[in-house]
């Protein structure tokens, strides 16, 4: 289908090789994470997963200073369990530029005592066979939080592994 609006091109225009401009954006940031997130990160170095209780009694994990449902400030710090169940998960097999090399498994886990799910990598699962991998991280699978021996002060300091492995 021809486009009636498109400017008519001269022969010289049509014969010209397309020219490209190439660029890379390499931008630097140093983001303050705030006192609530900072406390959560410190908890990781102590082997703890911390949440905050909302005015309605829900425990938000990871800890957040305000509640997305009521718009009110959260209060008490709650240390939740380091065991829980996978509530959603995926295994990535496609490489994406700028992101880690596949395969890797990601899951949201409902830890004991939490009302919201925490995202993290799932390690300790054989990912080369898709059918096996998908089964190993199915919804309802029991997992345990593992903590980095040498904490970096980021959310990379924890991950999940299937329980009893």
């Amino acid at each position, binding site marked *: 289908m021809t*486009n009636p609006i498109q400017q008519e091109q001269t022969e010289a225009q049509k014969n010209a090789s397309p020219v490209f401009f190439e660029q890379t954006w390499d931008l630097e940031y140093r983001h303050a994470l705030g006192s609530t997130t900072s406390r959560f990160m410190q908890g990781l170095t102590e082997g703890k997963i911390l949440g905050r209780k909302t005015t309605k009694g829900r425990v938000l994990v990871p800890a957040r200073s305000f509640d997305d449902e009521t718009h009110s400030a959260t209060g008490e710090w709650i240390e939740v369990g380091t065991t829980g169940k996978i*509530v959603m998960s*995926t295994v990535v097999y496609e490489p*994406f530029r*700028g992101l880690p090399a596949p395969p890797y498994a990601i899951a949201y886990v409902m830890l004991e005592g939490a009302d919201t799910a925490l995202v*993290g990598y799932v390690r300790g699962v054989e990912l080369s066979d898709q059918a096996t991998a998908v089964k190993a991280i199915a919804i309802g699978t029991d997992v345990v939080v593992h903590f980095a021996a040498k904490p970096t002060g980021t959310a990379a300091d924890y991950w999940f592994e299937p329980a009893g492995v």
Partner: protein
Amino acid sequence: MINVGIAGFGQSKFVTKRTDVTFPELVKEGADLTLADAGIPIEDVDAFVYPLAPDALIGVSQGERWVIDALGASGKPFMRVNNGGATGMSAVLTAWTHIASGMFDVVLVAGADRVSESGSAQSVLNKMWDTGYERTVPLNTITMLALSAQRYMHLYDSTEADMALVTVKNRAHAALNPNAHLRTPITVEEVLASRTLAWPIKLGDACPASTGAAGVVLVSERYAKAHGLTPAWIRGIGQNTETFWMGNRVGPTAASDHGDADALAVAFQVAYTQAGITDPRSQIDVAEIYSPFSSVELHVIEAAGLADKGKAPLALSQGKFALGSDGPIVNPSGGVLCTNPIAVTGTIRVGEAANQVRNRAGAYQVPGARVAVASAIGGDHQFYSTMVLSTDLEEI
């Protein structure tokens, strides 16, 4: 309130790459095609709403500056809208507000995208997530919807083959649409055999990265009458928003489930109430709904009230929603699954719905279509837009 109609819809033929135009030249193509379709001169356009998703996708900051002249907006009111994947439809809703308020008579929404010029699209989209809690995990728009698809399968005992039914239907539709990007018919077996991106989403379940332009022009009833235009009338609009945190959309105390599209269902209901739609399955002829992955169409069909929760796969397996079937036809253009130029994808939903109720959809026209619904989704299943259109202003 002033009645507002869609008087024209323009779109280019969507492809992976275009080397014959700059980005502003592509936007001009969208503006020109739209105004030509409506028969409205640029002089009559009172204001512009410009859809553009994240700047990093086109590699130019404040990309709206770049296209002012391409739109013909110099010397006139102009506004950029960005609601992620819902951008192209949120822009139309903004334009509707401009006219319904009595402020303007003619508003142009036109834009373009060329997603494939950056090989880093999923890296750009990974930057949507929380810097403290989520960015150490490589989330992106494919993984976020893989998680949703897995939950849908879990909640409703659905399978990957159910998802494939959506692709099969939409590709068959796109084969009839000369502007669609992916137009090759595909079988359930081929979808299931395609390579896994993020389980359960495979290449056959995913939209392409499309390059092209599109636009719609909105007019007041007063302008339409004065110029003898017969636009598609906007009968209802809805918008709703979902919490930022994906992990808050799961579990017994959560307000919604990431496997469903509950907040979108509310947005549909808002538009239906305005339009007088009480039984969408019998009152709606066509749905142009935003679903960049096959799995998404299942829960959007349900949110639109065209099937019960968890029952979209059964209806699809019975041949429902496909051109030629009884009842509402879903994505007769092939939809987002076959064409996704992010910034204007939502605009195309409105334009296709308008063309259907104006009996101008060509080979993929739904016979006798009078009432259509359109929707879009942006962010991490977060920004929801809906619209009901009809041929006339009579009772639906």
